[in-house]
């Protein structure tokens, strides 16, 4: 059984966002790039599944659509434990294009299980997983917080509004995973970093996909006005303000 984890690299979550002078793009200079947190958790869960005794997963691949700058992110995934990596060589314009490219890769490589993080922490689209599943005609389940293999089926839990559901789905299958799927992302070990040197990172030519949307401008939120401080000895004043000024209670 082959498993694919789709990876995107994103600015570190502590990044302060600055825009280019024309507001057409986000100023990415000096940004620390990391594996998208949800993708990292997906990879962690994939590795846990493969390491389970008697696991039917033979190989874990990671794939990403982007330029050569994201290769360190893929190599980190290899150092953490993925077996091989694919970089589809294209600077994608939107999620639709990413999904189309990934779909072409999946068709060529045939994966039984695909894991995607629920969204990227930069664009917050929550799109690629669902789009990829539809491109492939795969079953998809989103908001997945737990995932286990059960023979040729997958048992999983998804978080719905106000509750959880335990589901069974058959393969092939795509899970869009969120927090809870794994406890904590892994830190690459020295051994992992060493073995990553010889693991394949294949660069795949883009398949000629096209985008349906484009970012044409950006803006930053307006600065908040100063916090109205209330004395700790006068809590009832806060209640009055919330009631009479803010009118929220």
């Amino acid at each position, binding site marked *: 059984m082959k498993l694919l984890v789709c990876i995107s690299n994103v600015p570190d979550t502590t990044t302060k966002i600055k825009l280019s002078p024309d507001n057409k793009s986000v100023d990415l200079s000096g940004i620390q790039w990391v594996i998208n947190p949800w993708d990292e958790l997906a990879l962690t869960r994939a590795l846990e599944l493969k390491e389970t005794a008697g696991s039917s997963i033979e190989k874990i691949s990671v794939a990403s659509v982007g330029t050569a700058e994201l290769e360190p992110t893929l*190599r980190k995934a290899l150092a953490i434990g993925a077996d091989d990596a694919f970089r589809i060589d294209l600077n994608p314009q939107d999620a639709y294009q990413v999904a189309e490219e990934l779909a072409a890769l999946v068709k060529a490589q045939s994966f039984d299980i695909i894991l995607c993080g629920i969204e990227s922490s930069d664009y917050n689209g929550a799109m690629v997983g669902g789009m990829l599943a539809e491109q492939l005609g795969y079953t998809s389940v989103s908001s997945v917080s737990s995932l286990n293999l059960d023979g040729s089926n997958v048992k999983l839990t998804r978080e719905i509004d106000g509750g959880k559901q335990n589901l069974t789905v058959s393969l092939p299958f795509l899970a869009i995973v969120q927090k809870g799927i794994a406890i904590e992302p892994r830190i*690459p070990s*020295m*051994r992992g970093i060493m073995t990553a040197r010889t693991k394949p990172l294949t660069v795949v030519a883009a398949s000629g996909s096209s985008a349906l949307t484009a970012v044409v401008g950006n803006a930053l939120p307006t600065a908040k006005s100063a916090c109205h401080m209330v004395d700790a000895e006068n809590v009832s004043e806060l209640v009055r303000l919330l009631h009479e000024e803010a009118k929220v209670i």
Partner: protein
Amino acid sequence: MNFEFTEEQLMIRDAARDFAQRDLIKDVIERDAGSIYPTEHVKKLAELGFLGMLVDPAYDGGGMDTVSYVLAMEEISKVDASVSVIMSVNNSLVCYGLQEFGSEDQKNKYLRPLAKGDKIGAFLLSEPEAGSDATSQRTTAEDKGDHYLLNGTKNWITNGNTAGTYLVIAQTHPEKKHKGINCLIVDRNSPGISVGPHEDKMGMRSSDTHSVMFNDVIVPKENRIGEDGFGFTFAMKTLEGGRIGIASQALGLASGALERAVKYAKERKAFGTELSNHQAIAFKLADMAVKIENARNLCLKAAWLKDQHKPYGIASSMAKYYAAEIAMEVTTQAVQIHGGYGYVKEYHVERLMREAKLTQIYEGTSEIQQIVISRDLLK
């Protein structure tokens, strides 16, 4: 010249940073207050391969270069020097000494478990009467034909109680002075070894520092490293590498303190504006940053020389001396910038300052480094 780190070096730095900022930070204040040994963290350090990161993969090590080691030591020391000293002693004293000078059998038997972190090593040189002056060893290793009989006391031994393998420096031929000294590999469980109480230290309080007593401890002859009388040279050569570890530790203490001071100066307000807008504070920060950058460059230069198999003894002395001195200065300034908050444990910088003090003292005091550097100039 090339000042770029490789992708792999950066990955190692980030791995160390993640480990420090995610795991070590959680209970560092409690471990310091209670002098609690970081058992779980050392286990994780072993799993991640940091304990033997410099060792040849042929002996189960990580096979990483010394530049990566400096980067990793800095990141871990930013948060907890008690943990980084364990890593430093194991890597750059014990494992390095065994790998460079040990026999094939010794490497297979002792280096492998140390490189994997299954066992921790300790380096036993200091004595109650011989700290910086390593030539006057009072611990004796009497030649008994097929074995040595070890007697004496070693002091200030990092990993003294937790280590499974000791490298012990002892005098076999007192008449030959330092040329009669040997280094013996001693199993911690050998009969006749007793360990003194945990030292109640000013800083690095959760590292495991003890005196170790040897009373007629039998050590097989095959556990001697190198030829008879090689011990002093062994110790000096090994300490050259060890200095890079402690220099990087001092660097990490300083840069950790600067990071905290910068953050504090940007958040904390005084006289109606952030501290960072007061020139008195901003200039302090600038001075701290320059000193740290100097120290980092000295550390990396020494590491680079070592990786190129070029002489690095003077470079590592300079790095150790300078980094330790500025660590003391920078951590003290970081406390000053924090004001009253700097003096309480919650803000970390007072601990970094206490820990920085030790870097001026152990693995060759600042004064010893000055001797090494000046002797080289004046020779």
